């Protein structure tokens, strides 16, 4: 896990161990390995880059699709499609809704799982496997089953509930549980929460002091990671929102792209780049505080 924090893009050259029996073969074999490694990385890189490049050309070149070939690679690049997309008021409404959903889901998720994870780690270690299995359930149950089941229940009990956009929050909180729980759980173990708590208690700290002065500050890497992942999940979630007929960023994107494919593509790319930048910023911030991704569980 800690490998994530290291630079893995440059394959480390291992000094071949001295083997006097076969002095010539060692380095040769090593060179072969390096070639394999680099080709693998190159293929993988292309696999990711080519579609993105194609998307970028489609979105930002004012050239008819049929003419998008090697000879037109540098002609008529423009951001006008993106400007178009960004000038839609409906986009900002949808974005606002999604942002609000993301924040609320993160809050609900943490409020539910932070105490549970702490109790499991410190008071009842036997609960850990149970919780870990329970929090995986949302991934085993498909969204459609969740929506249909829950919708049926709510429609009879509280008919007003499902019409509100906020009705998505509980779904998202449940949906993000596996990420959140794992991040918190491994964070707690990485900081050795149990002895930290004992140290704090023997120094006279109350339960609340232990929680807010000891656990939460040291768990910040995990909490940020968990929140980031939950937010990313919510910002990109389509199935629930679409099934419950809500206007969130993803549903807006899909609808918008149907009407104006080029601007839609530009918008999708912009969202992708923004997300990548945001993730990078979070990792950078954590690292500056001396917290590797290893303490986040990913």
């Amino acid at each position: 896990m800690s490998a994530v924090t290291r630079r893995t893009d440059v394959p480390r050259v291992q000094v071949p161990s001295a083997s006097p029996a076969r002095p010539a073969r060692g380095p040769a074999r090593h060179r072969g390995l390096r070639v394999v490694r680099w080709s693998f990385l190159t293929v993988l890189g292309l696999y990711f880059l080519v579609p993105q490049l194609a998307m970028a050309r489609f979105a930002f070149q004012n050239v008819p699709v049929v003419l998008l070939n090697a000879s037109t690679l540098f002609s008529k690049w423009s951001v006008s499609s993106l400007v178009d997309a960004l000038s839609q008021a409906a986009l900002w409404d949808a974005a606002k809704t999604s942002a609000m959903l993301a924040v609320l889901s993160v809050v609900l998720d943490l409020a539910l799982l932070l105490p549970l994870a702490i109790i499991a780690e410190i008071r009842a270690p036997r609960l850990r496997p149970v919780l870990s299995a329970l929090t995986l359930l949302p991934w085993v149950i498909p969204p459609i089953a969740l929506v249909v089941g829950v919708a049926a229940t709510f429609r009879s009990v509280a008919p007003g509930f499902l019409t509100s956009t906020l009705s998505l929050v509980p779904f998202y909180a449940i949906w993000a549980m596996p990420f959140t729980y794992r991040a918190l759980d491994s964070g707690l173990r990485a900081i050795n929460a149990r002895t930290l708590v004992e140290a704090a208690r023997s120094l006279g700290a109350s339960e609340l002091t232990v929680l807010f002065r000891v656990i939460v500050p040291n768990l910040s890497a995990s909490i940020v990671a968990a929140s980031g992942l939950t937010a990313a999940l919510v910002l990109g979630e389509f199935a629930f929102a679409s099934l419950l007929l809500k206007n969130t960023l993803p549903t807006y994107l899909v609808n918008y792209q149907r009407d104006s494919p080029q601007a839609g593509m530009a918008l999708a790319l912009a969202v992708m780049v923004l997300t990548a930048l945001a993730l990078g910023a979070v990792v950078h911030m954590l690292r500056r505080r001396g917290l590797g991704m290893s303490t986040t569980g990913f």
Partner: protein
Amino acid sequence: MATIEMIGVRKTFGTTVALADLHLQVESGEMVCLLGPSGCGKTTALRLLAGFEQPDAGQILVDGEDVTHVSPRHRGFGMVFQDYSLFPNLTGRQNIAFGLKVRRKGALETAETVDRLLAVTRLEKHADKYPHQMSGGQRQRVALARAIATEPRLLLLDEPLSALDAQVREHLRDEIRRLQQEVGVTTVFVTHDQHEAMAVADRVAVMRDGVLEQIDPPRVLYSRPASQFVAGFVGTVNRLSAERAVDGAWFVLGARVEAVGDTVAVPDAVPVVGEGATADSVPKHAVVRPEQLHVNRAESGAGPVARLVALSFLGAFTRAVIEHPTEGLVTADVLGEAADGLAVGDAVAVSVRPGAGAVVLQ
């Protein structure tokens, strides 16, 4: 400063009996080391004292007041852990101040106390580093300062030095002792290193399988161990056959020895065979330390003879291993230049120094 008492304390984990029936008394200002092999219940005893675990039976008294069910938070004890367990998000200074802040001491008083502790633990230069920027020894000194900052009634240390390398360990060991004596805090120090225990403790408590075998000052523990287990745990020992004379005196390797320890376990009603000779048919054994034995070059005569099989120079003395015709391998320490005349392969005579104490066992 306080007197600590554990009375008949029992603790089980499932079917494992960690502490069977522990009685332990620590005097005010005293430093007691809990010593014993792995799994004998040292950590469990300490955690019970700290209040992190509840005993199944028994009582824990501080100055006569029952604290068995008082939460760790209200016991007012300081604790130092093997893995330091400093708060990673706080600097050294903030770590030391934690307990004082929690107790809502004034800012001025807190700063004064912290500065004083930083000075006595020689941490001034590292005060504003975070734990991950400190060496192991520095971290453990911060942990120690943090534990005594609140002026605890009892200081508990669970193998505080075992994660450090030999040199730092010895240095910090002496520092802990110095600090403990300066502050005068009652201390329980858990270790499985006999040298550590002997070096710092006022009294050493040797534990075995959840019970206390013996608690005594290091010197007494060494010279008058209560059992073979204790004798073997605090230093090297030889197990030699012992004989009992008519007058009740014990003889080992033909010499009269002063019997200490387990002699009570030997039945008194023994058949008398002859004057100065064996008293009964039950085999007896004495536990004798290497320095209590005397080694001489002997002329190789007829019959089996003791032979020197190994010699190792250890500075102040030379350790000799002798193959004895009736006792098997015997270890003896030869002081200073007396070893010069000896060589591996020599025929030697081994005897017990006059007046040496020995443990006689059934």
